[in-house]
């Protein structure tokens, strides 16, 4: 097997990484951005490596990002989605994992609605590196590495900067991963949500908690908007209506201006325009949303390289 870089055997979560490992991954992603802007977008870094994207949840964006990342580095990339997989025939998660691992891929990229899926599978799959592409409401490390790369390129050092995350914190793996990353990398996180959308003891992450969006704007450098998961709203009472949510927690131009000229806007996508973010904000010069998508490919190239791009030990 190729020797992993930066001391990484798997990539389960941001919380498992050191500052050095995060910095190395972000810098390596930075280096890969060039490949993406070439006319011939191909590099031989992962030639002969096999990557399987195993997605149990719908995710066009993350799956495509991993697929392009692998292919641009010349890896053989196989995509499996739950709708066509053996799990539909009743196979267990463990059997699916073991079956795919028996085909000897170098990396399994996994997205699953169950938190801890990668940790669970790693106990049984010895020789396969695992990348968590989002597990339940737990972690989404490559999204956070993507955000850190985007912030590095747009505002330089983020040490001491303040990121305000708005929306459904309770169900957000992105929010959890950022709160962990903030501690490691030295930026501040503010959380803005009604109590219905906050997990228990969220303040233990060391973040400031606000229920009033307007009060949180002052001193914010990055406004990070989370998707309102409208699919939940039919059965749950997290907030009374989309209209009230947008009024209370939606980002519009007025709020963006109140935050100040320096403030940038992020969103992990997919966006609900007119719900958590107004269209004019999403499309404004202050929006880093498309950069996030672009840099996602580079960061995933870095993650794949870190896990299986090193020299093969003979």
């Amino acid at each position, binding site marked *: 097997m190729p020797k992993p870089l930066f001391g990484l055997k798997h990539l389960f979560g941001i919380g498992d990484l050191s500052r050095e490992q995060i910095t190395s991954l972000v810098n390596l992603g930075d280096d890969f951005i060039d490949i993406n802007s070439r006319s011939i977008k191909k590099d031989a870094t992962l030639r002969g490596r096999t990557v399987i994207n195993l997605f149990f949840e719908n995710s066009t964006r993350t799956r495509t990002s991993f697929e392009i990342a692998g292919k641009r580095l010349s890896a053989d990339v196989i995509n499996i989605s739950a709708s066509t997989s053996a799990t539909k025939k009743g196979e*267990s*998660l*463990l059997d699916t994992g073991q079956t795919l691992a028996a085909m000897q891929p170098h990396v399994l990229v996994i997205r*699953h609605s*169950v*938190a*801890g*899926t990668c*940790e*669970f599978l790693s106990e049984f799959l010895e020789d396969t590196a695992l990348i968590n592409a989002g*597990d*339940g*409401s*737990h*972690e989404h490390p490559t999204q956070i590495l993507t955000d850190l790369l985007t912030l590095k390129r747009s505002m330089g050092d983020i040490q001491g900067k303040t990121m305000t995350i708005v929306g459904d914190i309770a169900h957000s*793996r992105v929010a*959890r991963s950022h709160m962990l990353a903030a501690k490691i990398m030295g930026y501040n996180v503010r959380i803005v949500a009604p109590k219905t959308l906050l*997990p*228990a*003891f*969220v303040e*233990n992450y060391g973040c400031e908690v606000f229920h009033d969006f307007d009060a949180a704007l002052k001193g914010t450098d990055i406004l990070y908007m989370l998707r309102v998961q409208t699919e939940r709203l039919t059965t749950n009472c997290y907030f009374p209506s989309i209209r009230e949510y947008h009024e209370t927690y939606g980002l519009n131009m007025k709020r963006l201006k109140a935050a100040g000229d320096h403030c940038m806007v992020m969103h992990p996508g997919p966006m609900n325009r007119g719900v958590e973010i107004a269209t004019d904000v999403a499309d404004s010069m202050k929006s880093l949303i498309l950069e996030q998508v672009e840099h996602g490919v580079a960061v995933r190239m870095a993650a794949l390289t870190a896990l299986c791009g090193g020299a093969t030990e003979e």
Partner: protein
Amino acid sequence: MTDILITNGRVIDPANQVDEVCDVWIESGKVAGVGKFDGAAKKTIDAKGLIVCPGLIDMHVHLREPGEEWKEDIESGSQAAVAGGITTICTMPNTEPCIDHAGIVLQVIARAKEIGLCNLRPIGAVTRNLKGTELTEMRELSRSGAVAFSDDGKPVWHAGVMRKALEYSSSFGYLIIQHAEEKQLTEGGSVNEGWVSTQLGVQGMPVEGEDSMIARDIMLTRRADARYHVAHISSKGAVEQVRLAQKQGLKVTTEAAPHHFALTEDEVLNFNADAKMSPPLRTEEDRLAVIEGLRDGTIEVIATDHAPHHEDDKRCGLSCAAFGIVGLETMLPVSLDLERAGVLPMVDLIAKMTANPAKLLNLPEGSLSQGNAADICIFDPNKQWMLDREKLRSKGRNTPWHGRTMTGQVEYTLKDGRVVFEKGEIRV
């Protein structure tokens, strides 16, 4: 000549307030005497350095027979029980079919007798098919051998049905055992709601799920003048409510499972599904409140909530895994920590696993009174051993104590004056 003489042991029989080094002798399967034996015996067990007590009673056990014998059957469950020094198990009705009519009660009792290792005292369902809508024939179930009533695994969720269940059962003095969980608060949860569930990103089960159901039931118990028992109590608020109800003279009792006084929610921090149960492991504050409840007598009984599952049901990620852990073989060593920590004197600790559940359920077992069936547990309170889940007698391997050192080991278990477990071996 007496049949069996157990000599030199520290005999602890809480029902008769005995705690002294003396002999116990057995004739025709019954306790013939406790004290100084002078005579000859066909078989002598030297219990020097060991504790001799009534066979333990576990009033909260899930065997999976009938219906899910691959998880556990009455035979494997009986073996696990006697390996843990337990000679009477009260089994919960959530089998398939469930224990909601007399035929099933008779069937499981007969099956246990055929195996002959321990007593099986079934707990009948409160509602038909555990649906929470229609009461079972409690009189008929009781006459067939059911010793209490519970829909355990599920709460009796409907307040009106619970009221009727308490009123009807109290007409005849039956005990209603409630799995106190307001599902409208806990739905979708896997672990205690708190900082641990937040870090894991899994949905939590708030303590209010347990506490609010108990609050409701205590009100109904007061009105019905019923006997109400909270199964597997796990939260500080719940212990406080039971204590208050007892002070007010209500017939409210409760039990604690060893995992709830030995472990906290930190056990699941690595997504360990073998530490997932309902109610979930809670915080250190809750754990200490359960211990205080045991110390001051609010919690009279230690019971395991032994819940064996097939490994397939546990190996699927924390939020998908089944609730429950096995407990029969770890009840005694884990509980002995309470004595070692100075929470309870040995005699009080043993009472919570013998005399107290016997009294609560009107069982003839749980004491070494002369003429009683010679159901006896002989254990070494200090012997250390490593728990290997592959060596459990239960078919369930789902234990959070795998690989840990346990202190306290059962040396002999006697049932009706017969040695059924001796130094690690089942004797049939």
